């Protein structure tokens, strides 16, 4: 490197020549600082290397999943009775959960964003818990709550059975997705200047009318994005669903459960097919989310 080091004038330190040759420690050209002068830093090389290596591994894993099956195998697995049942139940439960989650998280997020009330920080903390909470433990806690212990007997008198039922799937999915949805919607509401609502109030509209006429329409792209991500979380929920709903064949079998059951039987084709389906849903959800979160609808 020493051999190319020479005195550079201001003029010679610009243009193509510059980027190739400049090794000056004190070069002030922007492109030089970014591209050339730090070329030989071991730290830069290490961070870039790590980022490439592991992204590549991830890509390889996803790619393998997509390529390992022949189209005919994929198609036959897709058309199997079990897979059709699982897909139908997944879409049904996830849709129902998404609706419930949205119905509950919109008011929750709005209250957290606009009002101050006693216990607000407690609510925020509890909602933050599941972020770091193992899904299996959440499933166990739900099983205890809706099982024989507390709410179970009460609900049973009303004819409602949550554990080991299809309803259990929805309940588990709800509690998995609810805190995330509140977060996304909360930040959507935070982005809307409350003065819009104040202006609407000043024209004689009440709080709810203002919410319906001004806040909701302004939040719609954020709400749509959060509904999509909620749906994806619900359809992919596994641990809590397995514990609360039981994951029994052709009864409470949703896509992740199909994957799990078939892997344990050694039935790779079915497992991989449900994996591909789940991945596609996640991929579409992320694409839509990126497109609409904070954007216009």
């Amino acid at each position, binding site marked *: 490197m020493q051999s190319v080091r020479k005195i550079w004038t201001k003029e010679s330190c610009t243009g193509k020549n510059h980027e190739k040759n400049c090794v000056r420690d004190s070069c002030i050209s922007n492109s030089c600082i970014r591209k050339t002068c730090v070329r030989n830093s071991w730290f830069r090389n290490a961070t870039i290397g790590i980022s490439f290596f592991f992204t590549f591994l991830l890509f390889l894993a996803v790619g393998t999943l997509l390529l390992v099956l022949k189209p005919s195998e994929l198609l036959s697995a897709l058309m199997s009775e079990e897979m059709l049942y699982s897909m139908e139940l997944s879409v049904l439960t996830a849709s129902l959960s998404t609706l419930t989650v949205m119905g509950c998280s919109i008011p929750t997020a709005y209250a957290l964003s606009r009002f101050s009330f006693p216990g607000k920080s407690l609510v925020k903390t509890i909602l933050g818990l599941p972020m770091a909470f193992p899904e299996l433990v959440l499933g166990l806690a739900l099983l205890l709550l809706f099982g024989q212990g507390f709410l179970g007997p009460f609900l049973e008198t009303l004819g409602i059975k949550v554990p080991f039922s299809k309803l259990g799937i929805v309940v588990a999915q709800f509690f998995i997705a609810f805190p995330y949805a509140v977060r996304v919607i909360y930040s959507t509401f935070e982005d809307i*200047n409350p*003065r819009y609502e104040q*202006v*609407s*109030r*000043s*024209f*004689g509209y009440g709080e709810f009318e203002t919410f319906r006429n*001004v806040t909701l329409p*302004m939040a719609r792209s954020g709400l749509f994005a959060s509904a999509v991500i909620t749906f994806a979380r619900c359809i992919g929920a596994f641990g809590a669903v397995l514990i609360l709903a039981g994951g029994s064949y052709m009864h409470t079998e949703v896509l992740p459960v199909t994957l799990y059951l078939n892997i344990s039987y050694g039935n790779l084709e079915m497992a991989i097919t449900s994996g591909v389906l789940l991945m596609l849903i996640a991929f579409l959800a992320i694409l839509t989310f990126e497109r609409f979160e904070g954007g216009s609808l």
Partner: protein
Amino acid sequence: MNFLEVNSLHLDVGGFELTGVNLEAEKGDYVALTGPSGSGKSLLLETVIGFYAPKKGSIFLEGRDITALPPDKRQISIVYQDHMLFPHMDVFENIAYALRKKLRDKKQIESEVRQIAGILGIDGLLHRKPTTLSGGEKQRAALARSLVVRPKLLLLDEPFSALDIRNREKMREALKKAIREYRTTVLHVTHDFDDIWSLANRVVIIRNGEVMQEGDPESVFRRPSPDFVADFLGTNVLKGKVRALEGKLTVLEIRGPGQNQIPNKIQKQNQNQNRDQKKNRDQSQSFEIYSADSAEPGEEVSISIRPEEIILARGAVESSARNTVKGIVTGISKKEHLVLVEMEIGNSAAGNSGQGNSESGISELKAVVTPTSCELLDLGIGKEIYAVFKAANARIIR
């Protein structure tokens, strides 16, 4: 009872507070609220409209106590600096939305919208979305939306501050016309003195959540009361003592630098400079200013002189103006389309630079002239200049 009465309003909202604000307005008044940033002007507006509940105090509108009413029952409208047009509605819908709570008939709503749009000159924009409008157009639309409901009280929270000067002037004209038409009482928060001059018939100056002075713009500007107000309004304030009365005129002795801080400075100076300094001190005597306002001999007062009421001259001229003060130009800067000339006065050793600086207690005077006068007088920093002004324009403030 007045049309609007705000009585000793107390409020504390995270860092901003109001401490006993009193405010009154007659029906049809145009009240300008001004004061330094963070003085609680916007907070006052948002309390009047009902977005904040005051800790203490009351608000009466048309004799009715509205302190505890929700904002949707007050019939007060607001226009913010950042317009707050609903982005999911076009301009027509924005304006019509304001009316829908009041009127049911579609045709009536449409004719009301068209009327206000005509007055404010936005009839061509009714089917545009707010994001496609320019700043001035957005503010016109926001103003139209607020006025169309014929509110009892219109609140303007720095509505023009994001616009350029030309647009501001156009907006003022449009606003004037609309206010005349809709006969609304207005509270207008502004930092722009042009707003106050051209629109308001009353001005209220607020600092730290407290009303410092109020009155018609003429008297507040000509005779700002506490020193803070005078300083905030950009007028010249000189402190002095009443020496004598001469007929109808009061003679004031304005303290020159010789009387106060120079001696301290001398101690810091080199010995061999001492003689110069002493000479300088002898020359920088206090000087006299004549005022047409009355005061008691011996009284300590301040006088205020508006920068635009000072005439600058190259030499001592004989004129009908009683006051001629010599000074040195210390700064020349552009102020919109005029030139602001800053000068040091009270130092008769003019030109003896190096000795006189503003720390030594020399008074400063600001004058506003046109760029042409600035050129004709060949003004430059360090040059000698005479400030001439009438006794009637040197107003005593206490």
